[in-house]
């Protein structure tokens, strides 16, 4: 996927792409309901440490953004809304 096309994506599309990735790769099985319902992936233990790394690698590759170490924090990654908001902010900046 060419990251250069990412800025053209609408917020709803970005949300769908991330949601799909989470469902297909990280929130498998019993955690699937968590994608929309969970306030905290960490507290629900729905995604573990290596899962968050996978998510970051995916976002960087798919949207052409650079996730800084300090940004790798629950306020950006702990639920779907936060991830979407973070990606939108990175693409807008």
């Amino acid at each position: 996927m060419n990251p250069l096309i990412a800025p053209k994506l609408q917020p709803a599309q970005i949300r769908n792409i991330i949601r799909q990735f989470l469902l297909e790769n990280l929130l498998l099985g019993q955690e699937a309901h968590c994608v929309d319902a969970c306030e905290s992936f960490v507290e629900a233990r729905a995604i573990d440490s290596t899962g968050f790394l996978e998510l970051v690698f995916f976002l960087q590759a798919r949207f052409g953004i650079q996730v800084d170490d300090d940004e790798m924090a629950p306020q950006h990654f702990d639920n779907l809304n936060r991830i979407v908001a973070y990606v939108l902010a990175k693409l807008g900046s």
Partner: protein
Amino acid sequence: MLVQHSFGRSAERLGDKEALIAGQVRLSYAQLREHARSLAAFLRVRGVLKGDRVAMYLNNRPEFAAAMLATLECGAVFVPINPQTKRDKLARLLQDCEPRAVFTEWSLLSTLTAVDSNLAGLVCIVCTGTHPSGSQTPLELAVDFAQARASAPDCRPEPSGIDADLAALIYTSGSTGDSKGVMLTHLNMVSAMRSIVEYLRLRESDVIFCALPLSFDYGLYQLLLGFEVGATIVLEPSFAFASQAMDVVARERVTVFPGVPTMFSMLSNLRNLSQKDLSNVRLATNTAAALPERMILEIGRMFPQAEFYSMYGLTECKRVSYLPPQELGRRPTSIGRGMPNQELWLVDPDGQRLPPGTTGELVVRGSHVMRGYWRRPEATRERLRPGPIEGERVLYTGDIFRSDEEGFLYFLGRKDDIIKCRGEKVSPREVENVLSTLPGVLECAVIGVPDALLGQAVKALVVCRAGCEYSAKDVIRHCALALEPHMVPKHVEFFAALPRSPNGKVNVRGM
């Protein structure tokens, strides 16, 4: 001397000192003792007796420590259970240990209540965390931690235990696919604690970081070791956000950093680590899986002031050996020669002792060696065999080592096919059992493959029935329903047939 006595003595001496720091929560030794006492009173009033099992199905929270100490004060046996354990396995574990009480979280209660096994002996479930606001009807037996602590004081005399009594049952994966409960007496645990404190030279001024799960004995012992010396333990819910976790290490002036290879590997990926003040870290430790030599050098750069201890152990005796830091340059891949108050040696397949400079199975002798596997006499007989003194039992670890001329040990592999993913044991059989419940799977095998982050990743080799087609995702999703995350295959490969040895057995070595 019982396990909880070390905490009691530290609380006597250092009441106002911080025992636990967890996010915004800071508990002094006196406060933690008060939490534990009130919970113990509640448990006793509810009928928890000496020898009863009490499960801790909890994340890394301060309540874990209070619940563990309360259980021990009742003379009961605490059973840590990984909070990522799924329903069916949880049912098997609870059926096996028959807990009288369970400590858990409101958010995990639905998994617990879905367990449709007969938990007849259960008298209470004590829950922490946010109370669910939805329509879910909690079990009649469920009470909140605060409610439990506020209940009437107990006037009954405390049970008098001895160090031959069981303190904990810790479940570990075995090659047969079933989890086995490792029975640890107070003497086993206190012996291990004392040996570790001695060689790591832990002290009261230490601040110990613990992002390792408390359901994992390496994490659990950070609490116990900290309590033994009167140190402060900084508890983190996970290491998922490594940069932020390292901010906590810097802010709380952590002096002891216990890690596993996956954590060190995550740290090596951080670009901003050198900007954090880690100068207070005087000790970094690794166990659970071997570190590549390159990573050991990197750890030296991450924690420039710290001594690094490469260690080895297994739940059945907690710890076996450590490499003195001054030996690291000469033999970086060795795990040392053994810890204090313990004897070890290698044996050949006939059980004959081998001299230094040879290869064989490691045998461990000492008062830290488990009492056996809970209700599994056969598995116990396989691991614990007669030792040099009449009636004594020593631990056959199932791990194969090479020793050099000076007796330093080098891990070569296991006698069985257990996989180590993120430092935790994965039984291929347990994963295969879950794979086999997929209707279209004709045949399957599970192996470990090298993985830079995980140490070993789980790989499933699958043969589908004619007319059935699964994608790798289908297989992974099915496994994720039943298995803890570290056991779920990362790779799936489909075959028309699995290779077999001439005698017809599946032979997947080297695939």
